[in-house]
């Protein structure tokens, strides 16, 4: 369960930040979840709820915001959505991208010019957007 590893990193980072701010508890956290990583949201949410127990994040409201993945070719400038090419990828490939999203450069090519030289302009993976705390 790769989602657990990422959930653990979110809780650890949030608690670290709150401690540095001398906060007594975390009340809310907003986490962006990029589409490219194909996170199972139910598992991720369950993992967050389990891992936060016994920490100053225990009673925090957790908001998960899904972010669409957009890719842009550095060669021809074409922009496209990951979901437009996702159905053409077999399960093994989307699994590889799930583990390490940079594998997109191994298996995906620009639909216009076939270049692997593109950037993921948004929606790569897990990102903490904001944390609300009480002192």
């Amino acid at each position: 369960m790769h989602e657990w590893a990422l959930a653990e990193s979110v809780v650890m980072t949030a608690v670290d930040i709150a401690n540095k701010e001398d906060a007594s508890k975390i009340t809310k956290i907003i986490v962006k979840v990029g589409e490219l990583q194909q996170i199972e949201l139910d598992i991720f949410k369950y993992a967050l709820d389990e891992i936060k127990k016994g920490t100053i994040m225990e009673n925090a409201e957790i908001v998960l915001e899904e972010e669409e993945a957009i890719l842009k070719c550095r060669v021809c400038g074409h922009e496209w959505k990951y979901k437009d090419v996702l159905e053409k990828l077999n399960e093994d490939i989307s699994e590889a991208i799930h583990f390490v999203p940079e594998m997109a450069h191994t298996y995906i090519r620009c639909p216009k010019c076939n270049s692997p030289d593109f950037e993921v302009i948004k929606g790569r993976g897990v990102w903490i957007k904001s944390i609300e705390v009480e002192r």
Partner: protein
Amino acid sequence: MDPRVAIIEHRLDGIKRIIAVASGKGGVGKSVTASLLALILAKRGYHVGLLDLDLYGPSSHIILGIDVDEYPSEDKGIIPPERHGIRFMSIVYYSKEHPTPLRGEDVTNAIIEVLAITRWGNLDFLIIDMPPGIGDETLDTIRLIKKSEFLVVTTPSKVALQTVVKLVKLLKELNVPIIGVIENMKFDDSAYVKDTVSELGVKYLGYVPFDKSFEDAVGSAEKLMKTDVAKKLSELVGNL
């Protein structure tokens, strides 16, 4: 904020020593040295991990003959499969035989991801097979793996040595511990490498002679351990 960075240190908590096998230049035998070092330490009874950080040209699995067809198993993260007594992790499990063209930011992201999700457990040694040079992977290793020590590999070539001198200077400037320099594929009696390394104030660990028959052992852990290269390397790293 990227949540993955904070957990990396925690993932490496159970590891006593982390040794990055590095060089300024490719083709000097970093991967062979890293793979053999992992094998040698495992044979001595240590718990050993091997991480191939060469994202463009991962090759430790070829040297050790490790099958990478299956994805590693998952248990709240990735569990590196154990082969030849070594817990082995590489991007090649996911990239297979395909080229992986990555720019700097992607390299850093991939390294952070691998370090954040891999659960090594308790190890005496984690050996890192580094890509050549002083680019993203080297800087990220120094930044993200605070307890890493560097074992530097060169050949007798003046060209290779000059790039190694730059790597050593950078590591010293950044106060990164350097175990020493190994002169690999030695074919003459020149003391040039030894003298140059000593002038830099770094330990010259010794040399490994060029072995024409070494290539025959690539792909077999058993054959590798019988090579003169492995025997000599075992002596050089005797008191790690």
